[in-house]
């Protein structure tokens, strides 16, 4: 029963192992002669200012949130699509109502400019 998933497990082990191996090899055999100038982060030849991580604009957040909410919608689509024929017209109406409600959300997002990139 669980044996069906053995190929996936093997794939996981090999890919993780390979990635670890490559990092290990690089770390172990690569020559390493650090100097002050080399270990500075590269910023077009200038001396770097401020922290290395950079903040992202909040606009990304809205797009990501909308993605997640519609992602959940898709989770419900999949089992529906498989049994769609068995459910018949009733299932179609059911899904139509579901999509309509979420479509209103899409229209709202669109009209309020949540999808615009300014």
């Amino acid at each position, binding site marked *: 029963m669980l044996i069906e998933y053995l190929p996936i497990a093997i794939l996981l082990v090999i890919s993780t192992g390979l990635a670890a191996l490559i990092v290990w090899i690089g770390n172990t055999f690569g020559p390493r002669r650090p100097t002050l100038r080399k270990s500075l982060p590269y910023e077009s030849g200038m001396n770097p200012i401020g922290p290395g991580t950079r903040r992202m604009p909040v606009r990304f957040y809205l797009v990501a949130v909308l993605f997640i909410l519609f992602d959940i919608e898709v989770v419900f689509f999949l089992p529906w699509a498989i049994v769609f024929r068995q459910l018949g017209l*009733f299932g179609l109406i059911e899904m139509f109502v579901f999509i309509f*409600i979420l479509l*209103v959300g899409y*229209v*709202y997002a669109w*009209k*309020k400019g949540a999808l615009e990139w300014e």
Partner: protein
Amino acid sequence: MNVQDLYAISPLIVLVTWATLLILVDVYIIRDRNGGTPILAALGLLVAMGFAIAQTGQQYTAFNGMAVVDGFAIFLQVLFLGSGLVGIALAYNYLQRMGIERSEYYILLLYSISGMMLMAIAADLIVVFLALELLSIPLYVLAGFGRPKVEPEEAALKYFLLGAFAGGFVVYGIALAFGATATTSLAGIVQAVNAGSANLTLLSIGAALILIGLGFKVAAVPFHMWTPDVYQGAPSAVTAFMSVGAKAGGFAALLRVFVSALPELAADLSPVLWVLAALTMILGNVVAIAQGNIKRLLAYSSIAHAGYILMALVVFGNTQVSSDAVAAALFYLVAYAVTSFGAWAVVIALEKAEQKGLALDDYAGLGRKYPGLAAAMAVFMLSFTGVPPTLGFVGKLYLFRTVLEGGFIWLAVIGVLTSLVSAYYYLRIVVIMYMRDGDPQVHAEPWLRLTAGVTAVATVVLSLYAGPLFAWASQAVLKLF
């Protein structure tokens, strides 16, 4: 599914459809900010209320036992829709004055009410959970509606974190109840318990976790930490709606789940509820004495009143008393809703921008300058205390009677004693209004005056006709599975 199923949730369908269409109307037709959205939203509430009242006297389950129509559900749906109407009336001028008017306010309000209505008709724990989230998520957003100011945002984040924490407890509690009985439907749980196939230990733990989660929602001690901060920080119109709606929604779930599905667990859970109710009454009333801010004072007052309603839940295992207890709890919810909305209307009338006008001292001189408003506030304070002839008095009378019939004499004694304590801080407000000199500033807005006036009159007049009203609440029985 058939037509009867749809008819069972017709008030809910009307409200959700209305709110969803209102989004489209708002986006395409009303464009400007102070358009007709509040009026349209109120109209939707009235239509839904008509559908709810049309169901009076019916009793059946729908959607494979997911939903149930009974007197309890209809009574609560009407209560929720009514509090939605008051919520709109309180917000209408307030939002304009505070410069935070957006039509989404009313749309989210409608969705929150539809969550509460779903809670009233829920007959399956999965529906209870979804209803809990549907009523809470719009409230998180509404609590933060005063953006971009610090106080509302803080209130919203605190409310959100504790609400989500409570949701975690409810989920795990439901999981254990499912593990104990192999079903999540309330009828199925009753059957499993009666057939002896249920694992009662596991079911008790599950029920206790559900109780913790809902305890956060109704602000029972020791799960009350958020209430004062959230009530103080959120816009007052939202606080007013939250203090009535969210609390009634939580109690709807508690009453439905414990009274109709879990009476067998009374031996284990009644003592727990006893302690919760006693702690809530004592702490809410005692800490309220020290408050100098009216919003915080009303927050502790709302905690204390949750304690009184919890008293009705203590007798949930005693089938002879429990239907009376449900009626008493419903009656008290109505009394609390009317009184509380009135008090908040007065608070909103005195509130100024930047959290000003909320100290108790700002009420000095109100009796001389605005006698009508002061008289209304005095009525609400008397009703909160439980002095006749007010709704609060009658409500407490019925509650104490039920508790005594259930044999919990000491709990009733605690209830009476804490009511006496509460007289101190409620009457202090009356004293400040009439005995001290001051120059209070009041916003004379028509909807606020109307709300304060109507609720004040209702508080007194309805108490004179308490008998028929209680008889009506008594018909709002739970369908037993």
